[in-house]
């Protein structure tokens, strides 16, 4: 053994230190707080419930809310599962005229916020709408099923949300490869039975993942149910806050909603854990498609075409028609403000989300321990929290802080000052970050995983470390995922309604709040103009999704 002091060493040596690095943990815990704090805030309302409010809610509000929410979740859940899985199987495993087109076209409804699809269909089918009017005048058909009904909300939300299940189920079906189905057939099982005995059970985790995402959107939805005047927890939170001016009532309603959401999160985590066996059972490349012929092929084309028509073509066309009717009279200088506000929020928000996602991604990469994974998972749970809950959860502490500042300043100088943080973009941006961190984190995490440890080491052995390695290896490899993360967050923030509506500075309108304002007055034509802008921007991430997924094949 050589004495360290006498060692004839040249060059720079690394000295190992045994101190643990606290930096990564600070980052991860702060980000986890971003989602845990609003939950804690609304939940604390339950610790000290105002008996009077509680009694009122329990007697007059809650029964209807619970019933409405359960019906909605049940209907939408059933609808998106059947529609999403069925269409996914058709385009992933069968062959019929137009399959390639429908493979990606059936994703397009993702570009339309559900509240837009909703007001278009109401505008079309309401008593004064163009279709019933035409039916009355031409055919004297007076009765149509009422669109403003429980069935109507469910139908519209299914049309808007089925792509979540379609996407995950399709990926699951395609990942199975043909070997398993061939094995089943070699054991004497028909293709039809193989679907129910093999393909469907293996795809189940993927289907459940998509379903839980769709149900989270359903629970979080504020715009669609508002258009339909269908009372759910989100609309009740809004009313409690802005009509009854009771934040405690809003918090208590939010807490109940959080219980529903947590149940869904558990469902989704369960499906995540099970997804492993689905991916290990792959092999054999792309499945040989089942060739549909004759009436079967025709039915498949018709079914896919009908859904595409109802969920995308009709709403989009109607929006464009309305826009053309009113653009000359309605497009004025205010729209510069609406668009500017939307762009500003979406850009700052997307930049924040991507930065935080990157920070969390590197934190996790440098400390790949189970505890860190769990913390990162917590930080990402915000995507499940409805915007209405986050709005309340962030507004209460910020308002509290404001009051403290105002009081302190009064005691100190005797002057009265107004809100310091409450009326700014801060609450909104915080809530966006909490809600959309996961949207940015997904691509960033996948991107970082592509940079293997051996690539890092290869760069190091070849003399590139630290910043040099970051610039020459990491950044070029992360460019695409970072762009994807930014685009997804940008569009989601642009479409976002409840957070923006509840926490924006007074009079600070965006395209989305303009849509809300016009629809709540029943002015469908005037709502179409800002809606078209949102939908067109919304096509961008769909384009990215289609380009980078195998949805084209």
């Amino acid at each position, binding site marked *: 053994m050589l004495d360290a002091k006498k060692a004839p*060493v*040249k060059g720079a040596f690394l000295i190992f230190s045994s101190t643990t690095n606290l930096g990564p943990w600070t980052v991860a815990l702060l980000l986890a707080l971003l989602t845990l704090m609003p939950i804690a805030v609304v939940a604390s309302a339950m610790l000290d419930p105002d008996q009077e409010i509680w009694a009122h809610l329990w007697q007059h509000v809650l029964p209807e809310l619970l019933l409405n929410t359960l019906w909605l979740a049940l209907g939408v859940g059933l609808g998106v599962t059947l529609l999403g899985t069925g269409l996914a199987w058709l385009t992933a495993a069968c062959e019929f005229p137009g399959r390639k087109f429908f493979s990606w076209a059936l994703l397009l409804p993702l570009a339309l916020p559900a509240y837009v699809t909703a007001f278009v269909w109401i505008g079309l089918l309401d008593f004064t709408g163009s279709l019933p009017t035409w039916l009355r005048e031409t055919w004297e058909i007076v009765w149509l099923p009422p669109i403003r009904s429980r069935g109507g909300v469910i139908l519209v939300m299914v049309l808007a949300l089925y792509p979540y299940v379609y996407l995950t189920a399709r990926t699951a079906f395609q990942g199975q490869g043909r070997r398993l189905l061939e094995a089943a057939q070699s054991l004497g099982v028909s293709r039809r039975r193989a679907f129910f005995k093999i393909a469907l059970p293996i795809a189940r985790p993927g289907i459940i993942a998509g379903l839980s995402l769709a149900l989270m959107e359903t629970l979080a939805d504020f715009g669609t149910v508002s258009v339909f005047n269908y009372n759910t927890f989100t609309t009740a939170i809004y009313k409690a806050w802005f009509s009854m001016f009771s934040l405690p009532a809003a918090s208590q309603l939010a807490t109940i909603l959080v219980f529903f959401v947590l149940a869904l999160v558990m469902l989704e985590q369960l499906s995540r854990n099970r997804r492993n066996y689905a991916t290990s059972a792959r092999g054999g490349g792309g499945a040989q498609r089942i060739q549909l012929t004759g009436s079967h092929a025709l039915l498949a084309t018709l079914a896919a075409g009908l859904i595409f028509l109802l969920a995308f073509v009709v709403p989009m066309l109607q929006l464009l028609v309305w826009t053309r009717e009113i653009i000359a009279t309605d497009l004025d200088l205010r729209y510069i403000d609406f668009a500017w506000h939307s762009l500003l929020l979406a850009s700052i928000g997307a930049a924040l989300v991507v930065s935080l996602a990157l920070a969390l991604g590197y934190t996790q990469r440098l400390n790949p321990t189970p505890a860190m994974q769990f913390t990162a998972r917590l930080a990402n749970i915000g995507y499940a929290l409805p915007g209405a809950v986050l709005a309340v959860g962030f507004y209460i502490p910020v308002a509290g802080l404001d009051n403290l500042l105002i009081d302190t300043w009064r005691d100190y100088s005797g002057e009265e000052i107004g809100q310091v943080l409450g009326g700014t973009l801060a609450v909104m941006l915080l809530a966006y970050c909490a809600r959309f961190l996961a949207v940015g984190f997904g691509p960033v995490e996948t991107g970082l995983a592509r940079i293997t440890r051996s690539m890092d*080491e*290869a760069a190091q052995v*070849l*003399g590139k470390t630290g910043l040099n390695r970051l610039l020459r290896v990491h950044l070029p490899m992360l460019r695409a995922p970072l762009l994807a993360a930014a685009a997804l967050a940008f569009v989601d923030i642009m479409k976002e309604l409840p957070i923006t509506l509840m926490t924006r500075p007074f009079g600070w309108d965006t395209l989305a709040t303009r849509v809300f304002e016009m629809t709540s007055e029943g002015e469908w034509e005037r709502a179409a103009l800002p809606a078209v802008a949102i939908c067109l921007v919304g096509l961008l991430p769909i384009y990215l999704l289609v380009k980078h997924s195998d949805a084209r094949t």
Partner: protein
Amino acid sequence: MLALDHVALAYGAKTVLTDISFVISPGQIGCLLGPSGCGKTTALRLIAGFEKLSAGEIRIGSEIVSYPGRILAPELRRVGLVFQDYALFPHLDVEKNIAFGLTGLPAPDRRLRVAEMLELVGLSHEAEAYPHQLSGGQQQRVALARALAPRPRLLLLDEPFSNLDVELREKLSLEVRDILKHEAITALLVTHDQHEAFAMADIIGVMNKGVIQQWDTPYNLYHQPANRFVADFIGQGVLLPGEVLNSHQVEIELGVLEGSVDGDCSEEGGCTQCDLGCKVDVLIRPDDIIHDDDSLLMAEVERKAFRGADFLYTLKLPGGRHVLAQVDSHHNHAIGEKIGIRLGIDHVVAFRK
């Protein structure tokens, strides 16, 4: 030159490597061979500078690069590394991958060196391809070229052929050996595949459980295994019980073996020091059993495997034990048939019981 001197590594109470010492001379190709989990890859990472050792020292050339508490950073070692998964940068084409480590060179020299490396690995026509457009064998050669381009003092290869199919593996290992010899590179290879090790390396260390069992030439590993592990891990064969008669005679079921005695019986204090008839196990390789129709010693064919150039027969001896026999491929005997055999052993490998 690479030298490891009493190197040990432990994570807390868990010992990974114990007392590893060996030297690879300039231009020589060494190999660490062992089953998965034996610590060979960890040893490689220690030499590359990615792990810190807990005892001993590592020298590359005349420079001490690792000793407890201090290691020279990997990027300052001038060591080339070929990864098991190649770790090619997917956003760079072949040319740029190879040029990645060539900094500090003027541009014309850099281009020259890249061209030289492309020529060396025979990929000049794929200079502008991206890694995903290449076959596995081509990716492997790009990884080699990238590691060699900055003229490392030492090249480390981590299971370099394990991702390739068998035929390509053999072809490429000979090709890589030619390239390394041509460039006079000192190299250390890590593998679990003895064919790969035999094809590539001048000298091999067989490892098990963090210890080098034997550091020797391929020939000696096969013919003079130092212990039961090496005898079992390298090549095929069976152990038959025997009794030492004297320093050059051992008696087994098949007769008396004569010759120098190897294995741990030859070590100091081994049974050959005493002619007292101590019990040993004797290693019988398939090529030690010779098929001879005139022999009186008969054995029953229990299993056979046709291997093209020869048969590998599993034979049942009269006493019920089994031996393997390698027999010319035109001696096609049926299962159950009794065939004559004799021993063809000029040195005895015996292990203490």
